[in-house]
Structures are given as structure tokens and as C-alpha cells.
């Protein structure tokens, strides 16, 4: 049986269309696959970058906390000396006072949290007022100093337990933008 000319004409039209459709679907599927592969690859890469950033953050945080703890420890020990020795004319006392002032104005400023700074401010102000008046009334003021020192130690303890970097990591951390 011979195909009718109409059917033959239709077949002639549909065969290339079908072929074209097959090609289009193939290309589409290929592109989708490629895109998925690329996305997966990008996600993997992002994951690796995040992991590296995380690692870097942890390393920097560990260094920061290590430095912070060293400075806190020295500050607390110096404060301890200043509030328990009642002869400010002694050379050792003057040395401790000098060391505390160094820590207060520079080293502590670089690592202390706001809460620690606020407590330190109160302590250092009592000390400065005493220093400015040649330690007049030291025997009475020493109790205020001890209260302030206790508040400093408490704030430092809280700060030591806090594992967030003050201000975050600018330029590295994705959550904080570089200034």
C-alpha cells in the first residue's frame, strides 16, 4: 500500500521537526545538566571557602583570645597588688601603678570589651584621683578601690567566656563589611 500524498507530505514536515525537537531537548537537557554541575561545583567551592574562612576565623579568634587572656591576667594581677598593698610610697607599688597605667591606656584598650572598659574606667579614676593628691586619704579610698577591682575582675571573667570578636573580622567575615 502506497502512502497517501497527504501523509507523505506530513511525514516530510514532521520528520525534521521531530529531529529538531529531539536536538533542542537534548541541548536543553545538556545545558541543565551542565548548569546543575556548575552550581554543585560552585556550592562545593563556596563550602570550601566557608570552611577555610571558618578555620581562619577560629585561628584569629584563638590568637585574639590568647592575647586578651594574657593582658587580662597581667592586669588582674597588677590590680590585685595595688588594692592589697597600702604603702604607695614603696618602689614596688610605684612600679605596679606604672604598669597598670600602661596596660590601661594601651594594651587593655586593644582587647577589652566595653563592659570591661567601663569598670576599668571607674577603678582607674579612683587611682588617678589618689595619685593626683599624693595618695591623701588612701586608707579610706582603698575600700572603693577594692569594690571597683572586684567589678573589673567580674567583667573580665564574663569577657573571657565570650568567644565573639569585638567588631567582628572586617574584610574576612561575610557578615561584617570592611570599613
Amino acid at each position, binding site marked *: 500500500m502506497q502512502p497517501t500524498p497527504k501523509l507523505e507530505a506530513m511525514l516530510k514536515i514532521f520528520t525534521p521537526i521531530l529531529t529538531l525537537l529531539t536536538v533542542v531537548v537534548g541541548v536543553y537537557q545538556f545545558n541543565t545538566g551542565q548548569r546543575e554541575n556548575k552550581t554543585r561545583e560552585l556550592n562545593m567551592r563556596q563550602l570550601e571557602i566557608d570552611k577555610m574562612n571558618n578555620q581562619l576565623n577560629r585561628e584569629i579568634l584563638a590568637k585574639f583570645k590568647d592575647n586578651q587572656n594574657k593582658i587580662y591576667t597581667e592586669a588582674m594581677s597588677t590590680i590585685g597588688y595595688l588594692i592589697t598593698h597600702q604603702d604607695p610610697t614603696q618602689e614596688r607599688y610605684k612600679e605596679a601603678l606604672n604598669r597598670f597605667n600602661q596596660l590601661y591606656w594601651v594594651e587593655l584598650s586593644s582587647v577589652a570589651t566595653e563592659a570591661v572598659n567601663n569598670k576599668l*574606667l571607674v577603678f582607674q*579614676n579612683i587611682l588617678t584621683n589618689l595619685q593626683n593628691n599624693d595618695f591623701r586619704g588612701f586608707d579610706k579610698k582603698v575600700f572603693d578601690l577594692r569594690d571597683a577591682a572586684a567589678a573589673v575582675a567580674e567583667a573580665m571573667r564574663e569577657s573571657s567566656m565570650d568567644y565573639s570578636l569585638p567588631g567582628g573580622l572586617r574584610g574576612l567575615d561575610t557578615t561584617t563589611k570592611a570599613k
Partner: protein
Amino acid sequence: MKNNPFFIILPVVLLVAVHCCHAQGAADKCPINFPVITFDPVNVTLTAASKTRLKSIATSIKKQPGTLLFVNTLGLSTKSGQNNCNRKLMLVKTYLSEVEGIRMNRIIVNCEFTDSVALTNEVSFTCEQE
């Protein structure tokens, strides 16, 4: 001579003068709250008016041995506020001591904290018996 009005007025004038001087002396006795001096918030220096005021405070303090001069000021509760507070106090203490000749150990300086910027420009003075 008895009828001379000069001899009637003179004792009255003398009486009034003595009373005034005594009253003035009493007002100068510690404890006194002296007038405050004001500093420029940016340029912390002693103005001519401040120096005049410090001179009058010093004169009053010198007249009363055994008294202490308390110099108080407020600073913002930050490290820089504290620094600024002490800068003013030291400026006043040094001036009173080096220029006006008041012994350092008679001048007690004190810095306290505030949150109001407006209050940080003034330095107040009081005197008390030692």
C-alpha cells in the same frame, strides 16, 4: 571741738567700716563655694578671666592657713573624657601652686564622671578646714 560735725561723723564712719570689714572677713571663712571657672571644650587653657578668678581664690586661701582647697570637675565617662578632666585639674593645680604660691598638698583635685557634655566645661572650688 565737741560741736564739730567731723568728730560726730568720724566714729560713725569708723563703726560702719569695722562692721563691713568683719562681715567681709566672715564671708571669706571656709567652708566657701567659690565661683566656678569655665574652660573652652576644645582648647583647654586658662583665660585671663580664669586667672583673675584663681588669683582671688588663692588670696582667700592664703589668708586662712590650715584650710584645704578642693578643685572638682566632671568628665565624660570615657578614657578621653577622663584624660580631659585631669588635664583641666592639673592646669588649675599647677597654676595655683606655681603662680599663686599655694602649697600642692593644700590643693585636692577630684575628677568625677557625667554623661552631660555641658557639665564638663566647669571647674568648681570649695575650701574646708583641714
